[in-house]
């Protein structure tokens, strides 16, 4: 853990779920024996993005809503380096939702951690697409008029190859999830339900404690897509956590590329001036 420790103190609110996710991310990397120089962590803009200098490792702190394609590009250039994208529910389900859709479809080799606190924390508590309808928030004093997006139903509709849900109060489980996600062949979608003590008064740490349960303890089989989807979507009385669905049968995006078949180098290693004369003959 020491290798990943930063000299900078954390700046999150007391009781923020980011502390738990931050700890689990470091623990998962340590458990997987990944050194800080062997991984790229990419951050969106939001409270979670303030992690970018609270952890060691190669990091990229980019634009709001765009962490998924940034990370996907890095992964495409060098699929041998694990890449992890961190993004919030504001960035991932409003501004950058198109990227999420196509990243699941493309099955890039990357982990995506959704810091899901159901609001825009860093801009002081506006509603996100995952905030319950009618919930009063900053800039929606009468409650938000839009219906709530069911994120799990949405993600499952895209035929994902890895879906997990964690809760920021259970570091041990989040660690196990992240270890599996980082090892996953393609796009690993990890929804971390996160307490936001300052702005989220509806799904608090205590509420999550009471409602979350580990689906594995009840014999859930993560190979069963339909059951996983039903379990993930139904959060009426209880919230199932753990690895809800995973298949390793679908090749990752870069494995699907015909010209890359059998190539043992990565695009990073292939940069050199290329003689194009043999391709010019067709123009003569």
């Amino acid at each position, binding site marked *: 853990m020491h290798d990943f420790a930063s000299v900078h103190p954390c700046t999150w609110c007391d009781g923020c779920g980011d502390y738990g996710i931050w700890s689990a991310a470091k623990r998962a990397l340590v458990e997987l024996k990944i050194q800080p*120089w062997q991984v790229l962590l990419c951050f969106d803009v939001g409270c979670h993005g303030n992690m970018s*200098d609270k952890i060691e490792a190669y990091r990229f702190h980019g634009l709001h809503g765009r962490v998924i394609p*940034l990370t*996907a590009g890095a992964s*495409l*250039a060098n699929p041998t380096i694990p890449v992890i994208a961190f993004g919030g529910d504001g960035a991932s389900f409003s501004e950058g939702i198109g990227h999420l859709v196509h990243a699941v479809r493309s099955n890039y080799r990357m982990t995506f951690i959704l810091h899901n606190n159901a609001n825009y924390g860093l801009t002081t508590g506006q509603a996100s697409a995952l905030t319950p309808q009618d919930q009063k928030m900053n800039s929606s004093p009468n409650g938000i008029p839009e219906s709530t997006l069911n994120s799990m139903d949405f993600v499952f509709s895209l035929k994902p190859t890895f879906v997990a849900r964690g809760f920021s109060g259970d570091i041990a489980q989040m660690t196990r999830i992240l270890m599996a996600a980082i090892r996953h062949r393609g796009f690993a979608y990890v929804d971390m339900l996160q307490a936001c003590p300052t702005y989220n008064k509806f799904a608090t740490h205590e509420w999550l404690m009471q409602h979350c349960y580990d689906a594995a303890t009840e014999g859930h089989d993560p190979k069963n897509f339909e059951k996983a989807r039903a379990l993930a979507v139904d959060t009426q009385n209880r919230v199932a956590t753990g690895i809800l669905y995973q298949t390793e049968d679908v090749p990752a995006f870069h494995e699907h590329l015909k*010209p890359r078949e059998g190539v043992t180098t990565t695009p990073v290693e*292939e940069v050199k*001036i290329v003689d194009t004369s043999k391709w010019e003959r067709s123009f*003569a």
Partner: protein
Amino acid sequence: MVRVAIKIVGAQGQGVNSVGEMCAKGLKRSGFCVFGYREYMSLIKGGHSSYQLDVSAEDVRSSTTRVDIVVTFNHHGLEKNLRDIKKGGILLHQTPQWKFKNPEDQAFIAEQKIRVIELPTDAILKKLKAKPILGNVLITAVVWSLLSQPEEQLRALVREQFGHKKDLLDLNFACIAEGFAACKVIAPGITLSLPKPDSKWQDQLLLTGSQAMGLGIIHAGCRVYVGYPMTPSSPILTFIADMQNETGMAVKQAEDEITAAQMMVGAMHMGTRAITATSGGGFDLMTETLSLTGITETPAVFILAQRPGPGTALPTWTAQGDLTLAVGAGHGEYTRLVMAASDTQDSFDLLPEAFNFAEEFQIPVIVLTDKHLGEALFTQPAFDQTIAKLKRGRLVTDLRELAQLKPADRYDPAAGDGVSKRWLPGSEAATFCAQGDEHGPDGSVTEDAENARQQMEKRLKKMAALKAALPEPLYVGPKNPETLIVSWGSNRGVIFDVLESAEMKKKNIGYLHYQYLWPLKTESFEMLSRTAKRTVFIECNHGGQLASLLKLACGRDVTQKILKFDGRPFFFEELREKLLSALTPNPSLDRRGA
């Protein structure tokens, strides 16, 4: 210089392009320089499109407005393109029993002595039991006969294309024979004479600016291409995608331009060479990412293929209206490089340079092209493979050097030219954060005032070093020209053709051509324009964007402007006339452009 122009017109999808390309290849192999220019509309079938070939035994890099022969696939071409024909020219059509009803058309044909020839295409194809598509070969054979070109050469071209399908090949050969025979009947004694050929053209390449740029991208060692279709950048995406099984490149058609830009930046950060190409509207979407690379100091290369704006405007036409966009796009202040290709040579040569500058200065580079350059067909010598060198600047890869790195080396503000060390994820070294927030030397976030000032200065210090590294604009002409022409981009071809014309050859004119447009070099411009009697800017935009940038940079505003902004490039006679009148001492005219 003797030049002959052939214009093929018809509805999109009728075969205008295939006939144009076949004629171009054949003529080049016969020893002619060919310049091909396409006009088409933003639709797939129908509309009215054209493919014009300007042919000469000397260098030809532009199109004329009036042509020697119009070949039309349908009756629309008879009416729409009649007035494109020069005096004594030929109109070859395929509309049975066509009569010009309009008395003005009849008068034009009589006065201009236009020879109207009808090819009974349908009847011939029926006789041969051939599909309508073979009409392309048939009419090409008629053109070939009119040009007195050997039949065997056309057969060789067809053999290259259909050699593997015997039945089809035989039918093509039959069409060629019929075409030659028909020409004797429908156009007895009519020929279109070409100048004496020059064998130097025979083995040269015939390719578009987009194809040359695609080859330049491959040549530069680019291994990842991420794009989103948008005319006129799409042919680059198509070319790179079609080549992927040969080159082994990773090619991704992204869900939008923001994704394309972000993936390119992610791939560049990881350490490969990656690129994206788009047009104005798509580039607008990429500009936040452009700005991000300004602060993270990530090398990035964007191709901006210009077409007219604003909005969707004229999607399949040309413009040079995005120079100030490229120079000013993205919020905040940071160092960038803007360059513009002008022909196939540039399109190939500038791409390795774009990547080298991006990596040496850790900046975004914008390569401008336009529809005219991207889709015009150029005759081009085989590209020299020995000029480009791989330059990656302060990229640290040596293991011992990596071991000594500190996180604070990444954005070290002490770097004299502002360019600090860069190393790649996966390198066994101290780690850093590529930070989009204002940051200290190791990429940690800080809002400290003194640090902010230092980092801003570090990033902008690169501008001076970059400017010093850039070559002066290209100058052709006498030491102290009476008239100085200043231009950039795809205008170069037509400007050269005009300057070499009989009317201009003896005049005291110099031509300063800008390949590198930002940061802007002003030394040559100031020196030449100070002594010149007049300075004339030639640009395909409304504002004279390069003229404005130079005015900002050095305050000189004693200029005339020849501007065009109707989606068309400058045509040969058009520019010659405009330039001639610009050279005529006329005070009212001189003030017009200022």
